[in-house]
Structure formats: structure tokens, C-alpha cells
């Protein structure tokens, strides 16, 4: 968590120097839903976090840190909740007025550590964005999660992430933001060398917040 905050702070400090006019920073309220291995192991929760974004000509960057409290959903097999800290980061390069190529990272850690899988992966993908009105931008992103690492071991040859984003200038420098992320990781494990078993992970996150343009 400390390293995540430090990275976010570094981004906050570095981006305004590059281009002060197009940097936003603000708090976020988070809704999340998490499933692991089987339909019965499902959690829902809320949390808080912050996000920062910046743009320098065709290059843009975005990062967020959220802390989630996930509790077992009703009717599920899970008996105890856990706390997750999730760090997301993207760096994108505009290849058209409506599309960017992007790379990034994701790191989600669970606390207590063994109550859920901690995940780290690289993101490679693209996003499309368009202005739907004065100061209102909507975006759609699709990322492949490459080289995922799990605290419980295993591998994931197919992992995808989809996203829907919205940024609306409410007044002056104040923006309203909303972001939806759906993550599907086809994790496979081989406990004791007995053969591979499917242990998929699936998470949906909605981040709603305000951002102040600097």
C-alpha cells in the first residue's frame, strides 16, 4: 500500500510539471464485486480511493489506488470477508483523435493474504474515446492482462479486462468521473502435480468520484 501511494504521489508531482493544465486529481467512491474459483465464493463491497490523470500532447497517463472492503455475498459459501488494495496504472499514446494504445499494470493485494488471491499483471490494450458533448468524454477500453502473477501460484493464459469511463466537466475545473472495470482471469492451478484445475477470478469495479483540474 505504501509503495502504491508513493507511486501515485510521484505521478501527481511529475505530471503537473510536464503539462500543468491537463492534470486532474480527486477522490473516488468504489463499488466492487469479486468471485473466485466457484460460483459460491463471491464477495461484494465498497471502498474509497483516489485517482490522478494527466495529458501531454498525445501522451496520457492515469493511475488510481483504491482500498476495498469485501464481504461475503448472501447465499455464498464464503465465511469471512477481506480487504483488498488495488493499484491501477495506464500510459496511453493517441494514435488517432478517437483511439489510443495503452500499457499499464494492475496489482491487487488481499489482506489477510490467504483469504483471496493477490494478483499482479501487465496491461496491454487499446481504448476508444469520444466527446459526446461540451466537456463530456466517454471511453471504452479493452486490455489483455499479460504475465499475471498470483499469490497462490498458477497461471492464466487468457485474461481480459474491459472498461467503460466517463468524464464530465461539471463546473470550471471540477470534473465528475465514473469508471467501470470488468476483469476476467482464467487462472489454472496444478496443486500437487495432479493436473491443472480451473480457478478463475472475476471482478467488477465501479469508481465514481470528483476530480479537480490543476
Amino acid at each position, binding site marked *: 500500500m505504501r509503495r502504491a501511494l508513493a507511486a501515485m504521489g510521484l505521478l501527481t508531482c511529475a505530471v503537473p510539471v510536464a503539462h500543468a493544465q491537463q492534470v486532474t486529481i480527486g477522490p473516488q467512491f468504489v463499488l466492487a464485486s469479486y468471485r473466485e474459483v466457484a460460483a459460491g465464493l463471491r464477495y461484494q463491497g465498497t471502498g474509497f480511493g483516489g485517482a490522478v490523470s494527466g495529458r501531454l500532447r498525445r501522451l496520457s497517463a492515469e493511475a488510481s489506488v483504491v482500498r476495498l472492503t469485501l464481504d461475503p455475498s448472501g447465499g455464498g459459501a464464503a465465511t469471512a470477508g477481506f480487504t483488498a488494495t488495488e493499484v491501477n496504472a495506464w500510459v496511453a499514446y493517441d494514435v488517432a483523435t478517437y483511439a489510443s494504445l495503452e500499457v499499464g499494470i494492475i496489482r491487487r493485494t488481499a489482506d489477510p493474504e490467504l483469504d483471496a488471491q493477490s494478483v499482479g499483471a501487465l496491461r496491454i490494450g487499446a481504448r476508444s474515446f469520444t466527446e459526446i*458533448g461540451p466537456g463530456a468524454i466517454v471511453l471504452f477500453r479493452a486490455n489483455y492482462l499479460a504475465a499475471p502473477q498470483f499469490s497462490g501460484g498458477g497461471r492464466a493464459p487468457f485474461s481480459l479486462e474491459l472498461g467503460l469511463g466517463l468524464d464530465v466537466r461539471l463546473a470550471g475545473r471540477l470534473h465528475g468521473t465514473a469508471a467501470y472495470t470488468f476483469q476476467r482471469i482464467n487462472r489454472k492451478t496444478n496443486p500437487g502435480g495432479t493436473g491443472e484445475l480451473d480457478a478463475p477470478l472475476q471482478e467488477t469495479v465501479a469508481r465514481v468520484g470528483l476530480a479537480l483540474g490543476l
Partner: protein
Amino acid sequence: MSRSVQALVLLAGLLAPVAGAQAVQNATLRRAEQAYDNLEYRQVLSLAQAALREPLTGPERARAYELLGFTYGAMDSILKAVDAFKQVVLIDPERQLDPNRISPKAYSAFDVALRQVLLVRQLRVDSTTFVGGQGAVPIRFTVTQPARVVTRAIGSGGSGRSFLIDSGAWNGQVNLRWPARLANGDPVPAGSYTVVVEARLGQNAFSGAQPIRVSHGAVDTVAHLTALPGYEYLPETEIPPQSWRPLGLAFLFTGGAVVGTLGLESSNLGSGSRRELGVVGGAALVTGFVMTLRKPAPRPAAANNLYNRLLRDQIARRNQDIEKENVARRQQVQLTVAPLPKPSGAAR
């Protein structure tokens, strides 16, 4: 004729003799005028001739001959009337008669008299301003008989330089244009000049003069253009017509997220939560709907911008031409010529 007009004519008839009487100081001449007003022509002749034997001013002498001319004209002695009018114009070459106020006989006698003496009349130099080398001073005068006429501009002061304006045979109305330049093309020095017109016919000669003042000034430069008359800059942005596009785009992006989520959901994990997608997708749709209702954002008008750029280029080119012209104008001299009041006895 209305009563008011008749009253005005009567008032004018009463005032005119009063004005003439004020100019005339000689008592004999005044009596001659009164006799003329009373149509006592024989008395006019004797009184006017008596007055001419007395010391008179120039205007009084001209008036005495004029009375004689009118009287001889009224008495059908045309030759004598012509002789009297000759004396009038020799004394006062600028004398004019109003054909509406005197008899046709007297006027025709005056006209014959004008054509029998050599005179330079109605010498006029018009006020003018022009750039040296690009204009001329208009000079007009009338020569009453065919004559060799030499027109000069003679400088006042110590130098007294004389510039020949024209030399030729003229008769009647003459219009000349003096470029006011030296032989090398430079404008004549600033100062006072006298335009002298000398007419010569055999032994007879007559001259008229008109003083003028020539002054130098800087030529006005042309102001730079900020716009071309009749061509206005067009707005660089335009507001597109209101459409459903914002809501359509919101549907498209949200639909992509919905379809992607449904398609990627793991069958092992069961149906996932729709809460997160509902919140963000709903926000996107509401935003799209609001943006559909709002006035669209202005967007660059490509054609207008191209037109504005052409207009700016055109104005810049015109300003470059103006700057070149101003450089030339700063090296030029603007001449202003104005006539001065004539001193008495300018013609002879």
C-alpha cells in the same frame, strides 16, 4: 408674384441706391445719380461730365463713366455709350454688369466696349493641394481680345525668381495648369508668389496679377488596413445542429461494455453482479441524454477558417503595398497653393 416677393424686390430697389450713395463722396456725382434715378437723362449727362472735371477717386470716376454709359444707352447713343463703358473697364477691368438689372441696350454697349479694349480680366488661382509632381495649380483668366499672353509666377522677397507658366496666343476664357515644379523636377520653393498675366496686342498691353502663397508639407501616409471593406471575418467556430448523437454514442459505449461483460463472464462463476455496470452505464446514458438536450459545443468551421486565412493574407499583402507606398510618400512634398487678397491697382 406674391406680395412678399414684391416687398422684397421693392426693398432691394430702395437699398441699392443707398449702398451706391455711400460709396460716392462727390456731391456732383451724387446729384448725377439722383438725376439718373429720376430719369432726367440730360441732367445726368451734364452733372456726370461736370463731376469728371472734378477730382474723383478711381471708383467714383468709374461710376461717373458708368452713368454716362447707361444714359447714352437709354438715349440710343450707342457709340457714346460704348466709349463711356471703355473708360469704365479701363479704370476697373473687373467691372461686371448684371444683365437682369440693366437695359439690353446698355449691356450690349458694355459688351462691345469689352471687346474693343485689351484686358486681362477675372484672373483666378484656385486653392489646391497636391503632391509635388502629381498635380498642378489651376489658373483661369479672360483675355478680351486676341493677344500674345505670357503668364509667369514671380517670387516675392529677395530672390524674385520668375517661373514661366505659359506663353501663347489666347482670346476669351483661358485655363492653364501650373505644375509648380523646377526644371529638375523639384517643387518650387515655398513662399509668396505673384501670378502675372501679360497680354500684348501691337502697341497695346495689359496685365493682371494675383498673389498666391505656396507652402510645403509632408505627404499624408496611408493607414494600414485592419479589414477589407465589404469583407468581414467569419466565425471560426460553428455550432452544429442539435442531434441524438450524444445519446447514441453513450448507448454504443455502454452497450459495448454490457456485451463484453456478458460475453466474458465465466460460466463456472455464475452470473455476476450488475450493480457496478448499472451505476457507470446509467451515468453514461444520463450524460448522453443531457448532452443531447444541451446546445452542442462549437466546433471549428473549416471553410470559415480557410476564408479568414485568405482574408488575413490579402490584408497582409495590401499592408505590404501600403508600407512601400508610405516609404515613397515620406520622400515626397505636398504643395498647398492658396490665393492671397489682391492689392489695390493690381491690373493696369
